[in-house]
């Protein structure tokens, strides 16, 4: 029973639920006797389980308000039961930096430094329609928010032109999910010329020899459009 199997089949949690098969129990417990990381994982799951049971026995908790309101919309859109049958398209919604990063607008701040205008663009893939444009403007900083479906500890993101044999134009390894549990891909606004591109996400894991292993997770196409 290797790590991938344990993760994929939720073996640790099912062990605590006593829902593993006899064979799985034997393999898991044998590994448990010596695998310190697995023991840590089991300890964590047990504490989470006990904590949740105790927490739900208390007075109701309040959910922190989502500042942009887009979190719920993204989650409900992306994970709606109708997702499998929906048309696919890349939806780009441009948010100005003034809302999230600089409420007083772009430009020179009181400390004398030039604030770089930043646009935050969530990339959401829903099967169906044609790709919507993502506006790239020289002199700005663009942040693409990419929701991922893998469960890796870190990810590698690559952007290349959407044509066979295209070389990577931008790549970043060991990225961690941040805002809204998405990957924040930040780049200069003038990086990409007009045209179709593909953003590729790969999950990163480590082999027993310490080598990095990259597992393809998703391709997200988008269209770069120059600002008018």
């Amino acid at each position, binding site marked *: 029973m290797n790590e991938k199997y344990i*993760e*994929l089949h939720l073996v640790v*949690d099912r062990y605590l639920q006593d829902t593993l098969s006899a064979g799985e129990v034997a393999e898991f417990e044998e590994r448990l006797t010596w695998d310190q990381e697995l023991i840590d994982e089991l300890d964590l799951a047990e504490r*989470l389980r006990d904590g949740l049971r105790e927490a739900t026995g208390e007075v109701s908790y309040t959910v922190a308000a989502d500042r942009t309101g887009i979190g*719920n919309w993204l989650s409900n859109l992306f994970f709606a039961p109708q997702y499998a049958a929906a048309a696919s398209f890349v939806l780009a919604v441009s948010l100005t930096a003034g809302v999230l990063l600089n409420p007083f607008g772009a430009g020179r701040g009181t400390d004398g430094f030039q604030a770089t205008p930043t646009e935050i663009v969530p990339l959401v893939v829903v099967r169906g329609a044609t790709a919507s444009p993502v506006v790239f403007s020289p002199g700005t900083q663009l942040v693409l928010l990419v929701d991922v479906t893998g469960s890796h500890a870190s990810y590698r993101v690559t952007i290349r032109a959407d044509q066979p044999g295209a070389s990577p134009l931008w790549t970043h390894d060991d990225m961690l999910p941040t805002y809204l549990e998405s990957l924040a891909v930040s780049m200069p606004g003038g990086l990409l010329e007009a045209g179709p591109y593909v953003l590729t996400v790969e999950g990163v894991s480590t082999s027993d020899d310490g080598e990095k292993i990259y597992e393809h997770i998703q391709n997200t196409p988008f269209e770069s459009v120059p600002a008018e």
Partner: protein
Amino acid sequence: MVGRYSRGLGYLLAHQIGDHERARDLLQETFYIAIEKLRKTELKKPERLAGYLRGIALRVALNAGRRRKREPAGLDISAIAAIPHNEPRQFQHVASKETLSAVRKILQSMPVKRDRELLTRFYIYDQDKQEICRELGLNSLHFNRVLFRAKNRFRKLLEKSTEVSDFMSSNND
């Protein structure tokens, strides 16, 4: 052997009998039996040591209700003494509060009600994953991801709390 297998066997025993405190006693008994047996008969397949120890631990747990008197004659006291003695930590009551605090933060940081319901059904009511996915309209990947992220966030919150506790205790010394 004791250092390598103590923690894991301790967990295994605790899971079997549902008592961490008593599992510690049974752990000593497990190692006593294993050391005695291995002195008499060499393991044919040394790579099967983990499985061998597990088997002994399970039998010890099974017999946990019976009272046995064993004479520790010829016993390697130093090996048994090397088994970590997990006294309640000074801040164990704080650690429990930290766990609860971390769990509350996780729940509060989940804006989607369905994700909170997923955790509740899976961890509190022990509902099957397939059943949860079917009833909540989720796919398997999303289910796994919610769990993974909750655990990851929980781990980070606990680590942060431990750092604060250690800092406070070192300042109070």
